[in-house]
C-alpha cells in the first residue's frame, strides 16, 4: 500500500490546478489554458490509479485512510478513505475529467473559467466519494453545486438560467434537510461526525424513519428518483456537452452513492421498512420514464430520461438487499458513467457541427460520418443493454436478483430491455440511417482525431467492462457482503 496521501492528492491536485488556471489567465489574457488543464486532469487521474493496484480486495475495511483534525470545535475531522464501494468511482471521475477537458478543447469563450470549473468540480467529487466524516462529506456534496451551476449557466443553451437555478435550488432543498439530519446524528452520537461511529449508533425505528427520509430527500433529488427528477432533463438539455457528461457520468452517482453510504448503514431498519416504497419508485422510474423517453424529440432529453430509467435500476438493486442486486447496481452505476457520458459526447459531436439537438433535423448521418456512426452504434447498444457491453452486466445482475425476490418486480424491471432498446435504437435509426435528410447533414465532416480518441477510450471501457467485469465486482465483493450483513442485523436491540 502506498504511503502517499493518494486521496488528498486526487482531491486537491485538480482543485489547485483549476485555481492556478484561473490565476494565470487573469494575468495573461491571450494564453489558452487547455494544455495546463489537461495536465491537471491527467495528474489527477495518475494519482488515482494506485488506488486500484494497491487495493486489498480481501478486506472490507477502509483503505488508504487519512485522518487529521479539521474543526476540533465541532469534532469534525478531515477523514478520507475508500472501500470496495467507493474506490472505482474516484477513478471513473478522474477519467471522465480528462475526457471532458479533451471534449472542451475548442472552447474559446472564457476558456480558463470553463476548465477551472471542471477541474474544481472533479476534485470536489473525489472528496465526496472519499469523505468518511459527515460534515466533510456535506461540505464537498454541496460545494460541488457551485461549479455545475456556473457550467450550466455560463456555457449553457438558450434556457440556461432557468435550468441552472432549478438544478441548484432543487438540490439545495434536499441537502439542507440532510444537514439537519447530520446535526441530529451528531448530538445523538455524543458529538461525532464519524460515519463509522454513526454506523454502529443504535437508533429507534422512529428516529431512523425521520433520518431515512431526510437522507432520502437529499439523495433522491440527486439520483434523481421519480418524482423529484424533473430538474434533470432541463439541466441536461441546457448544459454544454462537458457539463452533461459530468452530470450524467458522475453527479448522478452521488445520490446513489449517498444511499449506500448513508441510508443503508445508518438507518438499516428504516431502509428495510421502506424498501417497498423504494422499489415502487424505482420501478416507476424504469417503466414510466422509459416510456417518457420514447416520446422525446430532443436527443439530449431522450438520453436524460434514459439516465433516470437506468438510475431506477440502481436504486432497485440497492433495496433488494441481496449481494447480486447491490453489486449489480454498483456495476450499473459505473457502466452508466461510461455509457451516458459517451452518449452525451456523441450528441455533442453532432451538436458542434449542426447546432441542433432535434432528432428531426438529422437523418442519414452514416453517409457523411461513418466512423462516428460506428461509435454511436456501440454506445447506443450499450445504452440498450446489449450483452457484451457494460450496460448488460449491471442490468442483468439486478434483474437476476429481482427474480429471486419477486417475479413480478423482475418482470417489470426487465421491461427496460424492451423500452431501452426501443427508445435508443429508434433514435439511432432516425438520426443515423436513411437517406441524407438535408444539405446540413450533407455538409457534415467525420470525427476528428481528438474526438476519435475520446470515443475510443470510452468504447474500450464499455466493451472491456462488458466482457470482463471481474475487476469491478471483485473489488466490491467483500464490502458489499459486510454492508448487507450489517443491514440484516439492524440496529434495534
Amino acid at each position, binding site marked *: 500500500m502506498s504511503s502517499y496521501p493518494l486521496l488528498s492528492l486526487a482531491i486537491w491536485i485538480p482543485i489547485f490546478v483549476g485555481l492556478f488556471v*484561473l490565476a494565470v489567465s*487573469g494575468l495573461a489574457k491571450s494564453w489558452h489554458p487547455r494544455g495546463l488543464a489537461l495536465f491537471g486532469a491527467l495528474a489527477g487521474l495518475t494519482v488515482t490509479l494506485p488506488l486500484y493496484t494497491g487495493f486489498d480486495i480481501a478486506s472490507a475495511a477502509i483503505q488508504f485512510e487519512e485522518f487529521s483534525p*479539521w*474543526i*476540533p*470545535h*465541532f469534532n469534525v475531522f478531515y477523514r478520507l478513505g475508500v472501500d470496495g464501494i467507493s474506490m472505482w468511482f474516484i477513478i471513473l471521475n478522474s477519467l471522465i475529467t480528462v475526457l471532458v477537458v479533451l471534449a472542451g478543447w475548442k472552447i474559446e469563450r*472564457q476558456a480558463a*473559467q470553463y476548465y477551472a470549473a471542471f477541474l474544481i468540480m472533479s476534485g470536489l467529487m473525489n472528496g465526496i466519494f472519499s469523505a468518511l466524516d459527515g*460534515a466533510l462529506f*456535506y*461540505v*464537498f456534496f*454541496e*460545494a460541488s*453545486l*457551485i461549479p455545475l*451551476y*456556473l457550467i450550466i*449557466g*455560463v456555457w449553457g443553451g438558450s434556457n*440556461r*438560467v432557468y435550468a*441552472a*437555478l432549478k438544478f*441548484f*435550488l432543487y438540490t*439545495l*432543498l434536499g441537502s*439542507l*434537510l440532510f*444537514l*439537519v439530519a447530520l*446535526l*441530529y446524528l*451528531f*448530538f445523538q452520537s455524543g458529538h461525532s461526525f464519524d460515519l463509522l461511529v454513526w454506523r454502529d449508533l443504535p437508533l429507534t425505528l422512529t428516529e431512523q424513519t425521520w433520518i431515512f427520509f431526510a437522507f432520502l430527500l437529499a439523495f433522491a433529488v440527486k439520483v434523481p428518483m421519480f418524482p423529484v427528477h424533473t430538474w434533470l432533463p432541463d439541466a441536461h438539455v441546457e448544459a454544454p456537452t462537458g457539463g452533461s457528461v459530468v452530470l450524467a457520468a458522475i453527479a448522478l452517482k452521488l445520490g446513489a452513492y449517498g444511499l449506500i453510504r448513508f441510508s443503508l448503514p445508518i438507518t438499516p431498519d428504516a431502509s428495510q421498512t421502506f424498501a417497498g416504497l423504494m422499489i415502487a419508485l424505482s420501478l416507476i422510474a424504469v417503466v414510466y420514464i422509459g416510456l417518457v423517453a420514447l416520446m422525446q424529440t430532443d436527443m439530449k432529453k431522450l438520453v436524460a430520461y434514459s439516465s433516470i430509467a437506468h438510475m431506477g435500476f440502481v436504486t432497485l438493486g440497492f433495496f433488494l438487499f441481496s449481494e447480486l442486486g447491490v453489486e449489480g447496481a454498483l456495476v450499473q452505476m459505473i457502466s452508466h458513467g461510461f455509457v451516458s457520458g459517451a452518449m452525451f459526447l456523441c450528441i455533442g459531436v453532432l451538436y458542434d457541427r449542426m447546432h441542433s439537438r432535434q432528432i428531426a433535423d438529422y437523418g442519414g448521418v452514416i453517409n457523411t460520418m461513418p466512423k462516428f456512426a460506428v461509435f454511436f452504434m456501440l454506445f447506443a447498444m450499450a445504452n440498450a443493454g446489449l450483452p457484451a457491453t457494460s450496460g448488460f452486466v449491471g442490468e442483468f445482475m439486478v434483474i437476476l436478483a429481482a427474480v429471486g425476490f419477486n417475479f413480478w418486480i423482475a418482470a417489470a424491471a426487465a421491461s427496460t430491455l424492451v423500452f431501452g432498446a426501443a427508445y435508443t435504437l429508434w433514435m439511432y435509426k432516425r438520426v443515423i440511417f436513411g437517406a441524407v435528410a438535408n444539405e446540413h447533414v450533407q455538409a457534415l465532416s467525420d470525427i476528428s482525431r481528438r474526438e476519435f480518441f475520446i470515443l475510443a477510450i470510452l468504447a474500450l471501457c464499455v466493451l472491456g467492462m462488458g466482457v470482463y467485469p471481474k475487476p469491478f465486482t471483485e473489488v466490491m465483493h467483500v464490502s458489499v457482503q459486510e454492508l448487507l450483513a450489517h443491514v440484516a442485523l439492524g440496529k434495534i436491540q
Partner: protein
Amino acid sequence: MSQYFVLPDLLPALPELFLLFMGLVVLLVSIGKKSSAQTVAFALTQLTLLLTFVLVIRGVSSEIEYTFSNMFVRDMLADFLKALVCLTVVMTLSYSRRYLVERVAIPMGEYCALSLLATLGMMVMISANHFLPLYLGLEIMSLSLYAMTALNRNDATATEAAMKYFVLGALASGFLLYGMSLVYGVTGSLEISEIAMRTGGKLYVEGMDKTPLVFGLVFIVAGLAFKLGVVPFHMWLPDVYHGAPTAATLFIAAAPKLATFAIVIRLLVDGLLPLYEDWQSMLMLLAVLSMGFGNIVAIAQRNIKRMLAYSAIAHMGFVLLGLCCGVVAGGDQRLHAYSSSLFYMVAYLLATLAAFGLIMMLSRAGFESDRLDDFKGLNQRSPWLAVMMMMLMLSMAGIPILFGFFAKFAILSAVVAAGYYWLAVLAVIFSLVGAFYYLRLIKIMYFDEAPADALPIEVPFSTRVLFSVNSLAVVLIGVFPQNVMVMCASAFYHSYQFQPY
C-alpha cells in the same frame, strides 16, 4: 483622599476615553475648510480607530473588571466585540473614502467625527453593566447615525431616510426606556447583574407574580428588535439602507449590529435570564418572522441596497435563532448557542462589508451603481471582482465551503441541540428561499451580458487589496473555521464562568 469621592479606576475604560478625546480632536480639525484638513481628519480617524483597537487588545484578559461603581464592565466578550467594532469601522471608512471624496456635498470631516462618536457609543453599549450607560451609549450611537444618514442634506431620499430613521429610532428608544423603567420598578435596581439576582430571588424565592416583569420585558424586546431590525420592527430598515448614502448604509449595516447584539446579550442574558422562557419564545417568533419575511421580500427587490437590507433582516433572524436556544440546551450548550450567534454575526459582518464595499467601488459621482442591473456581466468587466462577489453571495446563502456555511451550521447545531427540530427545518427552508436571490445576483454577474455603455471599472489599488483580503477572509475562514469559532466561544466562556446558571 476624600471619603465621598473616589476616583474610579479608569484603566478598563481607557479605549473609550481615548476615543472620546480623539473624536473631539477630529471635530476640531474638521472645521478647516481646506481639503487638506479633510484628509488629515480622515487619516486621524483611521489612526485613532487602529490605536483604540490596539488599546482594546492590550487590555484583554480573562478576568472580569468592573468600574464606575459597577456601571461599566470589561470582560472577554466586551473586548472581543470592541476589537471587532474598531476593525469594522476602519474597514467601513476605508471602503467609503473615495465614495465620500467624490460626493462633495457630504463633508468628510464631520462624517469622520460622527463615525468616531458612533463608535464610542457602540463601545459604551458593549461595556454597559447598568441601564444608564447602556441607554447613553445607544443614544450616542443612534444620534450620530441619524446625522450621518442626513449629511447629504440636498438629497431628498437621504433626508427622508434620515427622518424615518430618527422618528422610528426615537420610538424604539422610548420602548426600551419604558421597559427598563418597569423592570426598575419591580427590582429597584438599574444595575444589570444586580437585576439578574433580584429577579431570580423574587421569582423563585418569594414566588412573585412575574406579570409586571414580563410586561417590561415585552417593551425591552420590542426596543431591541427595532434596533436590530427584525420583523415586525423592521420597517425603517429597507428605506434607510436605500435612501442613505452607500457609505452611511454600510456604516449602519455593519458595526451597530454588533453593538446591538451586545446589548441584547447584556439585557436578556445577563439581566433577565430568570425570565428566559418568556424572552426565548419572543425571540423565536421574531426569528422565524424575520427569516421568512426577509428572505421572501428580498426576492422582489431590484435595488441591491434594498435586497441586502432584507437579507440583513433575515440574517438577524438567524442570529436570534441562536440566542433563543441557549438555556434550553443547558450546560455548555448554552454558551455554545450564544457563541454561535456571535460567530454568525462575524460572518454577516465580513460579507456585508465587502458587498457594500463593492457597490461603492463600482459607483461614481452621480452614479450610485445600486441597481441589480448595474452588476450585469461583471464577470466580463472584471473577473476578479465578480468571483469575489460570488463568494460573498454564496457565503450569505450559506453554501460550503464559505464562512457563511459554518455560521449557519453552528446556529443549526445549537437549534438541534435544543431539540427544536421543526425550527431547524424552518430555518433551512428559509435559507433555501434566500439562496434564490443570492444566486440571481450571481446569474446577473455571470450569465448576463455586460451593457455596451458600461463604465470601465477604476478602483484604487488599496481598495482593491482591502476588498480582496476581506473576501478571501470569507473563503479562508470557511476552509479553516476553527480559530474564529474558538475565539467566539472563549469570549463567552470567560465572561460567564462564574454565572450561577
